[in-house]
């Protein structure tokens, strides 16, 4: 590998490096500043509290890598919690039947959106916006009120703590890590993953190379739909309720995590593990703000906005220089 290729490769990883440095330094500053911050449990709590966001962000990474965007994820998460709560509580369906059904529903919804985007060449933004309206609206046709869950299997999933030495994690956190691992393997070690990068790099070239562009695109949105539904299932475990106002604005958090994780919004470049770092940074911001105690919750949004700004400008500088 010559020097130019090496520097080009390193340059592509600058956002990821910045994120990693940011994460470590935020944790370091927090540890110095606040009592009880420097502990393994704080790190594990990041995973426990953000398990659903992590799963959703993995799906979003696939979509963003193809150069698309999925605004429906938050609404699909809400719909999943609603359908789960409705079927389990109001109709007495067994959770083991409800959960696969919800996952299937999310996958099918994502696939349909991908199909419309590809076949009719409509912008992903507007199609997934319609998907968002539809999913949120369907929540309210089921019930305007929040439905709380008392099913023993769900409460068991919510309360189970898996000990790790003196620390513990929740089953949801483990599921989220499994999804990250599966996403990593699919994205970086399978043909589908290569197709995703190729499609994001240049659709024209992908088409000319004979890659299955339509199948890749619909699959990517189906993956995002599946991840959103799974995120919804995890959120149901976490909240023990179904509500149409759950996960409002989650799509923004997921996009922010993907961007902060170093994935280019124009597609074709990025890493799945970067998204994991991005989610951890978002979680850490919230943790620091809650440890600080005097800062109000809206500072989270302002800080996330500022971070987005920095990273997007950084991305522009990098891609601008590469051209």
């Amino acid at each position: 590998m010559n020097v130019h290729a090496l520097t080009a490769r390193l340059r592509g990883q600058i956002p990821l490096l910045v994120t990693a440095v940011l994460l470590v330094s935020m944790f370091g500053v927090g540890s110095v500043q606040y009592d009880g911050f420097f502990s393994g449990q704080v790190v594990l709590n990041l995973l426990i509290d953000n398990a659903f966001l992590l799963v959703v962000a993995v799906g979003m990474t696939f979509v963003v890598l193809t150069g698309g965007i999925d605004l429906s994820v938050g609404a699909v998460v809400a719909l999943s919690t609603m359908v789960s709560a409705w079927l389990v509580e109001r109709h007495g369906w067994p959770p083991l039947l409800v959960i696969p059904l919800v996952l299937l529903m999310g996958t099918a919804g994502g696939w349909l959106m991908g199909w419309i985007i590809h076949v009719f060449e409509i912008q992903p933004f507007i199609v997934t916006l319609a998907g968002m309206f539809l999913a949120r609206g369907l929540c309210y046709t089921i019930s305007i009120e929040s439905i709380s869950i008392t099913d023993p299997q769900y409460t068991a999933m919510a309360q189970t703590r898996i000990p790790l030495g003196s620390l513990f994690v929740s089953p949801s956190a483990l599921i989220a890590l499994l999804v990250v691992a599966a996403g990593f393997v699919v994205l970086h070690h399978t043909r589908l993953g290569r197709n995703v990068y190729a499609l994001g790099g240049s659709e024209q070239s992908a088409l000319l190379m004979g890659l299955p562009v339509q199948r890749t695109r619909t699959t990517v949105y189906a993956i995002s739909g599946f991840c959103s539904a799974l995120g919804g299932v995890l959120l149901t475990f976490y909240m023990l309720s179904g509500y149409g106002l759950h996960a409002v604005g989650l799509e923004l958090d997921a996009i922010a995590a993907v961007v902060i994780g170093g994935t280019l919004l124009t597609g074709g470049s990025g890493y799945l593990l970067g998204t994991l770092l991005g989610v951890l940074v978002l979680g850490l911001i919230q943790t620091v703000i809650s440890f600080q105690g005097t800062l109000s919750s809206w500072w989270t949004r302002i800080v996330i906005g500022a971070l987005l700004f920095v990273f997007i400008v950084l991305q522009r500088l990098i891609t601008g220089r590469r051209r």
Partner: protein
Amino acid sequence: MSTTPAADRAGAVKAVTRNRLFWPAAVLAVLLVANLAFTPDFFAVRLQGGHLYGSLIDILHFGAPLILVSLGMTLVIATGGIDLSVGSTVAIAGALACLHISESTDPGGLGTVLTALGIALGAAVLLGAVNGLLVARAGVQPIIATLILMVAGRGVAQLITDGQIITVTSDPYKLIGGGYWLTVPFAVLLAAAVVLAAVLLTRSTALGLLLESVGGNPVASRLVGIRATRLIALVYVFSALCAALAGLMVSSNVSAADGNNAGLWIELDAILAVVLGGTSLNGGRFSIGGTVLGALIIQTLATTVYTIGVPPETTLVFKAFVVIAVCLVQSPVFRAKLAARGSRVRRTTDRPYVAAPTDREVGA
């Protein structure tokens, strides 16, 4: 061209249905008439205490902020962009104005209110300029550039109001969104004036043409010497100004600023109004009249849903189908497929021995 009266009539009908404003106007008319079934006196407008009252006036009154936001959005979309930050701008403008009025010693004074308006509109220019520079100078995708302000702006609005709802009692401020002037709600007059100014600016000068050329083909318009950068930045400033005016109306109407909920999801309604009005999301052509009709359709829909007694949140389902239907109709691929299917049917029934189909329809 045939000259028979029947053909003339068919031609006239075609000319009317081909008009860009026909479909939005037809949808609005159908919605309004459908309301008659639930409320017999839906079209009644009466004068009471020097003010006009009635469902139609209400639709105009409560639709005014959406019309303004959609107007700004139309011009942004005409240049091939999109502005997601308008909802946050609505909240920030209302919060700044109410904060200034509530902290002043003379909340009812005209000077105080004018300063408050100045602060809110000035902040909007600043926010719009940030969006505009990010899009036009830094070359960031519009969705992403305005997403930053959408996320952060809501936090800023809450920071301004300190998470509380600021209430104000100020008669001059109340006029903007809740007052009446010459028997008509002032908000309607204000929105109408801004719309009129925008129509004159874009259609009586070359500005509209320049916007459409920038949206249609940025490279070609740069080559013919259009200063796209300045134009695009200006459009985002205009959008922010419209959003700020809408924010002033919303907060003035309820005499309070709510950083959390003011203008929430208005960006989506505005995009929907623009799409309904026949402006292409790909940029390159726009219709302000269509956008006003689109905004009125959305407001009428909301009113209808309230009067029928369906949970208002379920309008989202309806909106989803409208968005998809309108986008499909706008999609060249969809139209080509439909045309291909239609002509195939015609060919097989009328002229079975015609040669192999040409692919002329695909270009439609």
